[in-house]
């Protein structure tokens, strides 16, 4: 198996790919990027917290015009993963309003972004219908 690198540092690869949030130890607020202090309570200590890989689609759009290099149309959405909101594309689904349903159960899935000149494969994530 060639070496792999995640699209973002909060995607943990391995046998059971999942997202990892920075969780405020004082109030439990979760963030996917680093914080100097918590936006909710201003405390300064965080721990890593695994985010549920199953969720429910709470909002979506089907994007037809996007930045150069992004294939369209694609589905962008917000997934409620057991109380933690996650921003993601919705993948492995027809990008049509008939196929995508608000409230539908979804689960984390990964896909290859390609292999670079060093043979390293980048892995992205999305949520797919469960």
């Amino acid at each position, binding site marked *: 198996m060639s070496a792999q690198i995640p699209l*973002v540092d909060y995607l943990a690869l391995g046998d059971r790919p999942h997202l990892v949030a920075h969780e405020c130890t004082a109030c439990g607020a979760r963030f996917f990027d680093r914080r100097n202090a918590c936006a909710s309570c201003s405390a300064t200590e965080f721990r890593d917290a695994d985010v549920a890989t199953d969720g429910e689609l709470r909002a979506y759009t089907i994007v037809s015009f996007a930045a*150069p290099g992004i294939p369209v149309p694609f589905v962008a959405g917000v997934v409620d993963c057991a109380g933690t909101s996650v921003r993601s594309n919705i993948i492995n689904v027809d990008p049509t309003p008939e196929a995508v349903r608000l409230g539908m159960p979804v689960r984390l899935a990964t896909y290859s972004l390609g292999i670079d000149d060093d043979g390293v494969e980048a892995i992205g994530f999305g949520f797919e219908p469960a």
Partner: protein
Amino acid sequence: MSDAVWILGITMTKFGKHADKDVIDLAAEAALGALADGGVSMTDIGVLAAGNLMGGGAPTGQLIQKQIGQTGIPVFNVSNACATGATALRTTIMAIKAGECDMGLAVGVEKLAGAGLLAGGSAKTDGNHWTPRGRYGSVAGVDGRIGTDTMPGTFAQIGMEYGHRYGGASFELFARISEKNHAHSTLNPLAAYTKAMSLEQIMGDVMIAYPNTRPMCSANCDGAAAAVVVSDAKLKTLSAEQRRRAVKVAASVLTSDPWEEACQILPNVNTLTRNAARQAYEQAGVGPEDLDLVELHDCFATAELVHYDNLMLCPEGGAVDFFNSGAPWRDGSTPVNVSGGLQSKGHPIAATGIANIWEICHHLRGEAGPRQIEGARVGLAHVIGLGSACGVHILERSAA
């Protein structure tokens, strides 16, 4: 009220394409227009606040002064996303309330005609080596790979989320909101677009980010707006005609978004708008039922729906019913965006937060011509800039 602040003069340029004018030409035209409308001159002004979001940090206020009068007064160049114009106005109001001066000028200007899709961020170029960069250690651009940063897509989700929570929203409902605003602008000669569009035309137009088609998105265009604000004490020294046309700023509020779960995943434009509305109604001593007209930030059709609720024009969760009742049409119980709104009047970003005040003032002064809302006494103007900033102003007709 002795510490009241008043709009003495206000104007907006025609919104649309101004190929022969640059940003400063447009800003100067609006500024001179506002001064003339108020019957004052640059030498009366004690503070200037100016905004031009796409100006790249240029000293817009000073450049305006060089066109209309360099009097040495303090200039505040402000930037607050789509709330930039309201922020400039709020800055001058604060200066007057603080007693620093008795008259101020606020200007917002933008040249956007022909600008394409406005994204929150742009994709990075994918090189030949996966190298983690930035706050997320990303090896490729995340916009489009992890959700969307585009404005149409972001606000589409905001409307869809509301529809999911309360039910009743559909592609057709959102398109009907747009149909209303495109119908309203036919009476507004300063709007960028003044052509009615049928529901079929709107739904059949180019899809940008479902459920927003192109006419359901705010229209990129050029334009400027400016306002002269004056203290109550100073207004008392001015002519009867100036006092009669002055419009009272019954409330001036600016909020940012308090932390909530998910607000950093999808911008929450709801809570800060509710907070601003609540403060504004309290300051003004009026309620939503007292409003004769509302100009709200319909940057997309999907956004207008949620703001009916956020501004408490309807019971919580009742925005779909509110729209279906006909209430926000110009002949309804709470006319919303009789100017045509951002979808049809246009959205030259930094001008918007003053142009919407102009629209309200125009009606309160009884000067709105064919689109006049008869007997208008109280109106509300709302803008929101992602990030987020929300400006709400409540305006009242002069009793003089």
